[in-house]
């Protein structure tokens, strides 16, 4: 967000803020310990608003749940923005001092009246108005989101529409107020920190900036390609067009985790060469030419970065099985096999090199990470305590670069509902499982809900199916069979599947790989389907 890519706030701020919005986030199930901090906030008097198509367990804690239609987030945010402006509740001093683009933004949201907001989102105008007023008038407020915002064809615009609300009200850059994307995987933040992005070097340093590139080239003794690389959806495109012929997959299971499973099968199967480095022989690995057995969690050392930008150490507790080795070992071995003289560094040595090149990590020695229970970046030097919240500069005399309000327009989900595909299918996680279930499938959870289609009781009744009945779920791309689970948290026309059981029910055979041109994220969250009873 206007600078480094990380949540602006700390978890502890959830406990002391006045208002919390969870937008497209079912943190109660997907981020349970983050939700503990939210709960403390609730008990301390914070109001909770949850924006989510489903009335999730998180939403059941809310003072108000706004059950918008899937993919209508921008319309809701823009309607809130307009309402805040027309009610004169925007923070004019902050807008003048710290932001740019207000006039254009105000003009752009002018068309998003409460009535239009209701038409697009389904949420009653009164509830939109209430949330707008509550957010704008709260002394402090946190706006949190997860994949419900980002797994859409317009993911980046979705995020920008929320950032706009924070800038409009001054709810960023001070203790208690902020913007919090809660990360779905233990090091998705750290991956970004480390430069695992097509356009960034470690520490969010722009790969297309020659000075920054030069610093790394000096340190590494190599020439770095001066252009950004491909994000995942562009890689898919390149595979489709035959421009990408070889793939090195580290700890991913794209055959099952990516949208439009049939297309993925075709792409991976059509490669000249694929290496998969993983702790399991995943279905993706089964397609590989070479599989490198990786050491996994608890078997290697390293660091990860959490959703509050806290860098923490991972430690080795047990020996990896058989021939498995850590990712660093494999990478260096592959490099040596390719003729480079790469000694294998320890995790700490690799980290110290990173610290020397990434200013935001400069002060994070292993010793300090140990002593302080992790450190929140930026932490430029060893006297720095780490950073509780970002963008405090926006409230200072010298704000630095102004934070831009962005013009974003709502567009409907790419996969439209019609008479043939009348039901919206959305996807997500359940409490006890994780992603494609490669790890969580291996413990015996009494709470496991296997591959099922969650459906409202009303839809089930009109289809003449009941709990446990098998149905076929058909999208424009494929069909899968699954049993029905009745779920009162769904309204008619909305259905839900978890992503954890691809071997039983491969939901990504249904999803669309329409993707956001800005982030490369596919629209997992909005699929049009019809449901056909399977005669028993």
């Amino acid at each position, binding site marked *: 967000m206007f600078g480094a890519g990380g949540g602006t706030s700390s978890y502890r701020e959830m406990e002391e803020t006045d208002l919390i919005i969870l937008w497209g986030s079912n943190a109660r199930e997907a981020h349970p310990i983050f939700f503990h901090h939210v709960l403390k906030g609730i008990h301390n008097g914070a109001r909770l608003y949850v924006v989510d198509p489903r*009335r999730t367990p*998180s939403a059941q804690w809310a*003072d108000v749940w706004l059950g918008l239609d899937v993919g209508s987030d921008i319309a809701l945010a823009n309607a809130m923005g307009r309402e805040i402006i027309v009610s004169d509740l925007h923070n004019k001093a902050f807008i003048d001092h710290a932001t740019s683009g207000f006039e254009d933004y105000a003009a752009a949201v002018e068309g998003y009246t409460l009535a239009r907001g209701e038409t697009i989102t389904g*949420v009653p105008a009164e509830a939109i108005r209430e949330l707008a007023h509550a957010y704008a008038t709260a002394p402090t407020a946190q706006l949190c989101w997860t994949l419900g915002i980002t797994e859409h064809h317009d993911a980046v615009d979705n995020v920008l529409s929320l950032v706009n609300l924070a800038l409009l009200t001054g709810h960023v850059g001070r203790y208690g107020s902020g913007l919090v994307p809660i990360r779905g995987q233990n090091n998705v933040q750290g991956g970004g920190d480390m430069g695992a992005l097509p356009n960034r070097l470690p520490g969010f340093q722009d790969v297309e900036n020659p000075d920054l590139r030069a610093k790394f080239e000096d340190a590494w003794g190599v020439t770095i390609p001066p252009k950004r690389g491909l994000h995942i959806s562009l890689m898919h495109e390149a595979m489709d067009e035959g421009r990408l012929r070889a793939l090195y997959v580290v700890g991913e299971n794209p055959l099952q985790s990516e949208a439009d499973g049939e297309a993925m099968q075709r792409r991976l199967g059509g490669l000249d060469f694929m290496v998969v480095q993983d702790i399991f022989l995943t279905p993706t690995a089964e397609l590989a030419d070479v599989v490198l057995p990786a050491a996994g969690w608890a078997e290697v050392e390293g660091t990860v970065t959490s959703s509050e930008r806290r860098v923490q150490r991972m430690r080795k507790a047990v020996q990896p099985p058989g021939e498995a080795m850590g990712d660093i070992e494999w990478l260096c071995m592959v490099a040596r096999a390719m003729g480079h003289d790469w000694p294998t560094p320890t995790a700490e040595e690799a980290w110290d090199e990173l610290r020397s090149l990434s200013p935001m990590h400069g002060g994070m020695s292993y010793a300090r990470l140990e002593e302080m229970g992790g450190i929140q970046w930026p932490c430029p030097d060893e006297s720095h305590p780490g950073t509780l919240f970002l963008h405090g500069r926006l409230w200072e005399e010298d704000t630095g670069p102004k934070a831009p309000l962005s013009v974003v327009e709502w567009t409907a989900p790419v996969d439209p509902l019609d008479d043939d595909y009348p039901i919206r299918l959305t996807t997500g996680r359940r409490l006890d499982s994780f992603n494609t279930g490669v790890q969580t499938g291996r413990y015996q959870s009494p709470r496991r809900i296997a591959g099922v289609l969650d459906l409202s*009781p*009303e839809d089930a009744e009109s289809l003449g199916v009941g709990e446990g009945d098998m149905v076929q779920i058909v999208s424009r791309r494929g069909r899968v069979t699954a049993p029905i689970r009745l779920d009162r948290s769904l*309204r*008619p026309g909305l259905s839900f599947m978890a992503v954890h059981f691809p071997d039983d029910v491969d939901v990504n055979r249904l999803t669309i790989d329409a993707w956001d041109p800005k982030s490369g994220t596919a629209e997992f969250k909005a699929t049009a389907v019809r449901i056909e009873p399977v005669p028993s």
Partner: protein
Amino acid sequence: MDIRLLLDRPTAAEREAVDRVLGSATSDWDGGGPSRADGHVARGGRATRRRRHLLLPALHAVQDESGSISRGALGYICERLSIPPAEAYGVATFYALFDTGKPRAPVMVHVCDDLVCMRRGGAELRIRIEETLGPEREGAGERSWGSSPCLGQCDRAPAALVHTAGTGYETLAPYDGVTSQVTIGQDRGELTLLRRAGVVDPASLDSYRAAGGYSMLDRAIGIGPEGVIASLEISGLRGRGGAAFPIGAKWRGVAEAMGPDKFVIANADESEPGTFKDRVLMEGDPFALIEALTIAGFATGATKGFIYVRGEYPVAETLLAGAVAQAYEAGLLGRDVAGAGFTFELELRRGAGAYICGEETALFASIEGHRGEPRQKPPFPTECGLFGRPTAVNNVETLVAVLAVLEMGAETFASIGTERSKGPKLFCVSGDVTRPGVYEVPFGTTLRHMLDLAGVGGSGRVGAVLVGGAAGAFVGPESLDMELTFEGAGAVGAGLGSGALIVFDDETDFGPVLARIARFFRDESCGQCVPCRIGTVRQEEALVRIATGRTIGGLEEERTRLGDLARVMTDASICGLGQTASTAIQSAMRLGLAGAP
């Protein structure tokens, strides 16, 4: 909150019973109908959780309707109030009047087997009932029965409380010839606290007013809150519920707390064995309690009051409910009370069979919809009481005495009684006496005089008097000249407690009496703190061993053990229940009433 319910659903009758208390569900999200007009928005959260205090009334509604609380009904209540079912179950199983096990016979007879009734025909009654209805709690037919601790009908023993599903409660006292009139032991003469009881029509506000009712509210309004509190301070009135705290100081504490968000409560959970004075007041003069509580609200600035009435007092509850309704109708409750510009809302709450809820902090928890477990003090209720707000809790008799202070004037009131115990006082005399009942006398009257009034029965010779109920102490015949005052009772190692005087003649076998007292505390301990939860059990076990002559290591060792238990319960229990659970037993040991070799 994200509660998860069992799959059982309520019956239509259960749903209606709950809806009568909570109103109809407004949304599918809180258990309403199948329509999904609200599929895009739901409200709840804090607003719903704030209604948790309706849990106890809702449980009553279901129990009253069905005679037990089914899984489906509990689930529906939980859904409506956003209460996790395990917590609601924890609350339901706390109270003796709620059944959560297998469905019960439609008629349930709760037969008192406590100290007084067992001496006054209760033992025979139990045998008779067992012959007709079968073993306790196992009757499968139309009627079933179970034992109950003291029902507060000691003047009309033996007593039973009958619950009929769909109809409600009825007190049978005595069991074979119900007297519904208020019984007052003595000649009416110069009564103050009891002067209207049994004289006015308790169901009629007009009758109350004709007898001078509500003139003290006018007087209070005339002298203002400070005037009321100053009067109470001068009067020396101290609480009559057992703790003897000066009421003026209590009210001043609450009055000085800022803001209108504070409470006054009438503690009408009269459950001390041998005590029934508050019942007589409420059944005979219910408006007096409401008037006094209204004055409490006026004086302290509390805009909301509760009367927490014992669940085993259906007559008092019905009369009070009617009286509250009439007072609202007459503008004597609600906004702008009596045209004097202050607000006072009053709500009646029913207990459900738990002695501990007479402890003020347990009473708060009970009203709030939690288990009736006491809290550690400090903080004290005047600072942190009901819903965490400043609260004045007063016993029924104390509140009625406030009217007396205002009526006769603080100085006159203070001139009655002794230096430290002032005003008229009610005593409940029962047991081996010929004229059991409530007696009003000035503080300082001797125990002997009370026995003369009530007439010693049984053998005609006093063996011991239990002063203050199960939490009180035994006094031997050598101490009959003690003055019945706070200080006089203290001098002989007793306390006045609730004003119960249970008389035992000199032919009494005290072994079973002490075992029954011990069982009372075992049954009534909330179970929160270790000294009381386990100590009351070990105390009862020891007394059963002594009563049956099967001691461990001889009597002297049992006495040592009981002494150790008494000490830890007194020193380390959270609340007064544990702290007094051994008082009567230790006093009996000192008097040599039981455990003599």
